[in-house]
């Protein structure tokens, strides 16, 4: 059972202790197509919930990645900067975008769990 939580903009966050790992969903990578460029935030950057945190570009378009919660970035994933195509292969795993220290864990309650997100995706079909 996945402990991930999702936003309507197709970001996911998985929390261990007070550190959250953020990425884009498999649905999002599929919708984007071949990812060719990624920009991730540097450690130490303060990000508000819903704020622009990262950039993901496919051959055709650039998209912003928004932070599902507020916090301070502890790490950006250099692996996807070097190999953007990894986002297409492992969006909900190794191709996470950044980790952050949560400022306000209560914000997680606003997000969807896997079942709610799956139901949300059905409404988009």
């Amino acid at each position, binding site marked *: 059972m996945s402990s991930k939580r999702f936003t309507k903009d197709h970001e996911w966050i998985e929390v261990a202790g007070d550190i959250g790992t953020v990425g884009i969903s498999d649905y999002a990578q599929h919708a984007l*197509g*071949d990812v*060719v*460029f990624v*920009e991730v935030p540097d450690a130490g950057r303060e990000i508000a919930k819903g704020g622009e945190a990262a*950039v993901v*570009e*496919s*051959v*055709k*378009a*650039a998209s912003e990645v928004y932070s599902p919660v507020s916090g301070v970035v502890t790490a950006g994933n250099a692996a996807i900067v070097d190999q953007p195509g990894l986002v297409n292969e492992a969006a909900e795993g190794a191709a996470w975008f950044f980790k952050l220290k949560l400022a306000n864990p209560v914000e997680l309650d606003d997000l969807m769990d896997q079942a709610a997100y799956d139901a949300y995706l059905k409404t988009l079909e």
Partner: protein
Amino acid sequence: MSESHSDTPLLTVPLDALHRELGAKMVPFAGYAMPVQYPAGVLAEHLHTRSAAALFDVSHMGQAEIRGAKAVELLETLVPGDIQALGIGKTRYSVFTNDQGGILDDLMISKLADDHLFLVINAACKHADFAHLVKHLGGKVELRMIEDRSLLALQGPGAAVAMATLSPEAISMTFMTIAEITVAGIRVLATRSGYTGEDGWEISVANADAERLARAILGAPGVKPAGLGARDSLRLEAGLCLYGSDIDTTTTPVEASIAWIMSKRRKAEGGFPGAAVICKQLAEGAPRRRVGIQPDGKAPARAHTEITDEAGNRLGEICSGGFGPSAGGPVAMGYVPAAFAAIGTKLKLVVRGKAMDAHVCALPFVPHSYFKG
């Protein structure tokens, strides 16, 4: 992808069912439902075109013909290209200009006979182009919009190998020639041309035969379908202009760096709309130029990205830009003042509020590979 906001239902091309069978993602383009990509995706389709061969459906584009003793002479009153000097059986790239020297559309002109020209024009411009032809040439020549034919493009270094299995006569054609030939047993009008920078053919075929021809070509060795997404990244790497992005009514052929479409005679004689403006620019230089722009970093710079000098003064905008799969990184074209058009000139591109290093570079990004015989 934005949806069409028009109330008019989308038109479908004769190969619509085949595209859907092949799993294409269909999107609105110039009023038509067109395949932007197949399940392989834009990146794979692009790379396959550069390494093997791909079949594109460009049936949304307009086809037209002009017949009459004065066809050549009269078409020259609308385009700056040298159609008199164009040999029978030859194809040439040109533009329709307006009185200000701006570009109404770009097109391919083929001479089937001294009194018979075949035109391929852009989908979004085709009705305006035809009205333009009727307005200026109507009554003096016979004009026909060809509505009953599809247009397929087979492109890539493997196109000739694939074509050899379907039409021995096609492979004796050279770049920018046109001929009525038989492909897979079907009579077609083919030009050895395309818009990817690769060898290949554009094939005009009766709608009734289009699917049979497409299936035969897709069945030839090495050929896979490719959509309009790959066609766009291929033509950008090839440094070729997309109407509406790189050229429009506000850009002259000189500014667009396509003055090579004019011969010495046409430059000297004029006699086409906007000739005064264009010939003055030829003599004195255009105030701005379309140039290749190489971002120094990895971030793609898309259309409308601001271009500045190193001090941050605005110079112009990117007109086409993105990731070049064969170039292996970002590629772009944009308009800059003449003083900044020299290859190697350092520029800044403002991407998401940040000024990124870039420089003016030679076009194309990927060398053209045409079959010149």
